């Protein structure tokens, strides 16, 4: 039982990172029906930007709160700019072309980001400052919870809350929801469709970057290929929750995190991806709308 709770804590922590990336998939997909393969790699870019600031620029020596604010805010902005560039340069010209063309392009952008990152930051594993946040923790019964875990989960929840508030509470959020239903009708109502798409890409990138920095703080080690598996798991999370569905993405992220933690804990780390992919395939086959619903099977 103690083990189980311990794995649950780990799973929820990791799951909150997945949830953030999954939200990026879901927001972009909801609006332009595109699986932005580069989502996971944006997270990697965010992680490296954060690392550059903290380690290369030495901001880790600033007071911890200031360092954290810089390490989150600047990568979020930087990654948002990168994603806007991808949208403008690669996706925009293809939006009216076949799904195949745009999927291949998205894949190409993912590859491009990875290899550009390798070129810029090198192929070596880099390390976040290990003692940025206090490493200690406390026991709840037999379960050890660290302050880092608490801080990261709280930060993720705050970001998710902010996102929901933005989408439900602001005019732009309303426009995003309208666009998810019907592009043409939204355009006719005077919504600047291009601007809303850009905002979706900015939001997606910011969430991804935040999760990247969190991963860096949590796992310490970062690598230019880390976005690939992260992206896949997050995508699985988005599908599990029903792609296009925001609460679904959050729940899906947590579920995938838990699943991964239990698999690693009870089975073996070597099988965790097989289990995650197995879940993905099973969900798509058995309940393609995900747990919280979104139609994905092609209408015939």
């Amino acid at each position: 039982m103690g083990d189980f709770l311990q794995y649950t804590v780990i799973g929820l922590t990791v799951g909150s990172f997945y949830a953030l990336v999954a939200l990026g998939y879901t927001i972009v997909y909801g609006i332009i029906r595109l699986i932005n393969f580069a989502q996971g790699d944006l997270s990697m870019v965010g992680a490296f930007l954060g690392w550059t600031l903290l380690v290369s620029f030495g901001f880790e020596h600033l007071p911890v709160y200031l360092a954290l604010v810089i390490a989150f805010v600047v990568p979020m902005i930087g990654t948002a700019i990168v994603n806007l560039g991808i949208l403008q340069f690669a996706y925009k010209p293809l939006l009216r072309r076949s799904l195949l063309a745009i999927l291949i392009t998205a894949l190409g952008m993912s590859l491009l980001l990875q290899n550009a990152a390798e070129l810029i930051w090198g192929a070596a594993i880099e390390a976040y400052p290990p003692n940025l946040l206090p490493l200690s923790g406390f026991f709840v019964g037999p379960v050890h919870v660290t302050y880092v875990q608490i801080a990261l989960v709280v930060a993720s929840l705050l970001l998710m809350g902010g996102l929901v508030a933005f989408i439900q509470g602001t005019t732009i959020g309303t426009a995003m929801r309208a666009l998810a239903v019907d592009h043409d009708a939204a355009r006719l109502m005077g919504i600047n469709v291009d601007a809303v798409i850009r905002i979706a890409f900015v939001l997606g990138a910011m969430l991804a970057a935040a999760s990247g920095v969190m991963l860096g703080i949590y796992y310490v080690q970062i690598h230019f290929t880390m976005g690939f598996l992260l992206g896949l798991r997050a995508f699985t999370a988005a599908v599990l929750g029903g792609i296009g569905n925001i609460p679904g993405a959050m729940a899906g992220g947590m579920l995938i995190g838990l699943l991964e933690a239990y698999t690693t804990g009870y089975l073996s780390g070597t099988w965790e991806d097989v289990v995650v992919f197995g879940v993905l395939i099973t969900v798509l086959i058995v309940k393609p709308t995900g747990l919280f619903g979104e139609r994905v099977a092609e209408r015939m």
Partner: protein
Amino acid sequence: MIARLSDRQVGRAYATVRDRLGRTPYWSRVVVALAAIGAAVISWNDDYVTAVAVSVATYAMLGLGLNIVVGYAGLLDLGYAAFFAIGAYTSALLMTQAHWNFFTTLPFAVLFTGTAGAILGYPTLRLRSDYLAIVTLGFGEMTRITFNNWEYAGGPNGVLGIPWPNFFGYELNTQGDFFIVGLFLLAIAMIFAEHLDHSRLGRGWVAIREDEFAAESVGVPSLRLKLFAYVMGGMWGGLAGAFFATRIGAIDPTSFTFQLSVLILIVIVLGGTGSLPGVLVGALVVVALPELLRELSDVRLLVFAVLLVGMMLLRPQGLWPRIRRKPKPFYGLQEEEPEDVAARILREHQVQMEERDRRHAAAGHKVPAKGEVLLEVDGVVQQFGGLRAVDNVSFSVRRGEIFSIIGPNGGGKTTLFNCITGVQRPKRGRVLFDGRPIVGLRPHVIVARGIGRTFQGIRLFKNMAVFENVMVGLYARHRTMTWQAMLHTPGERKDELRTLQESRRWLSFVGLESMAGQLASQLSYADQRRVEIARALAAHPHLVLFDEPAAGMNPTEKLELVGIIRKIRDLGITVVLIEHDMSLVMRVSGRIAVLDHGILIALGKPAEIQNDPAVIEAYLGREDDDTDALTARGA
């Protein structure tokens, strides 16, 4: 002299040469081309060059397989390396554990990967293509991780000490030997791929890629074909995998990563999806470019990523694109006089119908005679959320008549068509065709039962030639098997020729024979509608449903359309028409049904409908002094 040739003349000369070449059997061209490449590489006599050439051949084989899945059928597969891995492991384990000969393992490698294709394909066929991409990616990774964790297959170390292939006592162990084996396998892979491309299967795949919904609605069993694409694609990957295993001598899971899947995808995107020579070009670029840019090996993948995105943006058709337009599609076919064509169509159609009626009767069903009920719509209800698009509609269409369905926009006419053709399943009610219920059948099955259709918004396969569009309509009537198509057997050739001839007749029937070689998208609106009609007729239906065939036509074209519709009826085909042009409807229809807000408000002869107060009200509102507008238009 040469300088004075215009572009057009050059183009025509090129087309003629291509046509001539096109008439030599494909296998002979492949053999000549590959033999020439082979001779060039071998005479170079450089082990390094030969080794690179072997790699090119391997990638080309993989590209050919992925091309079937992505290029023909339009299904993005991001885990193709899995098939390569399964083929390699199958062959390697059989050689090392069971001590089989390489060539004996080949059929098993191909069989296993084909099966793997079916296992992957079957449950995922109904998925949207973007989900499919992710599922295939997952499949690829799962396969690799499974091999990595599988002790019998050596785990992370893989299979070592794979023997050289033994060819009747002669051990093949030099790069030159492998090159020859590779070329041989590549030739087989290319010839089979080309044969498939030019068979009904290939046309069916492209039709699915262009518009899956339309393909299914004109008789292409889309799910089965997609499954075939996976199985075939897997088989090619298995062949390449087995070859790779024996050549390298040791395989391990790191040879089969996602990166490899992406590289194979780059091979076909660079070359041009769907294009076979393009695959060779793509393989050459993907393998040879890194060799040329050794000092830049760090940025190899970056270069490929840029190439991939750049190609999609700037030259999506690839370096050596596939051309589907054919200047003279009927070259070499026996010429037929127009009267002859009409007579043949009539005769052929009667034969088809009689045969069908006979089969129908033999199965114990009642065959409706002319004037008896052919299609019965009984209490059909279709509901979208709170909207009843079709509300308890019942009527019957008699064999041999022209029946029109009219009504204001949003009246539920197209929804009714969709319920009849199996596109949608009505919430309630029955649809009987030939006395048999057809609700719940898939659209292509309903086509095979004898119902053809056209679409309100034209849904042709835009990037296929006009005659190919019609040939897709003939899909259900082919009599050949897939293996025959792969081998391009005499039987299959005859079948193809017959199909081609028939598509030509149907095009001549609608007056478009001269446009046959053009791309469907190049035709005028009215002509596209006529191609749709020819495509629907090609399946020799008992009943055709035309959804607003006159929309966008000018008066002359409408007049011709009336002629075509009457000719169709004269063939003995029953016609159901949705149309807004009242003068056309009144002129051709035997009976008319009027739908308003999903409710059948009138049914009768044209004259009755024109004077029906309910119909007039539906169209014009309640104002009494406007009533003569409808009768005036229908004069």
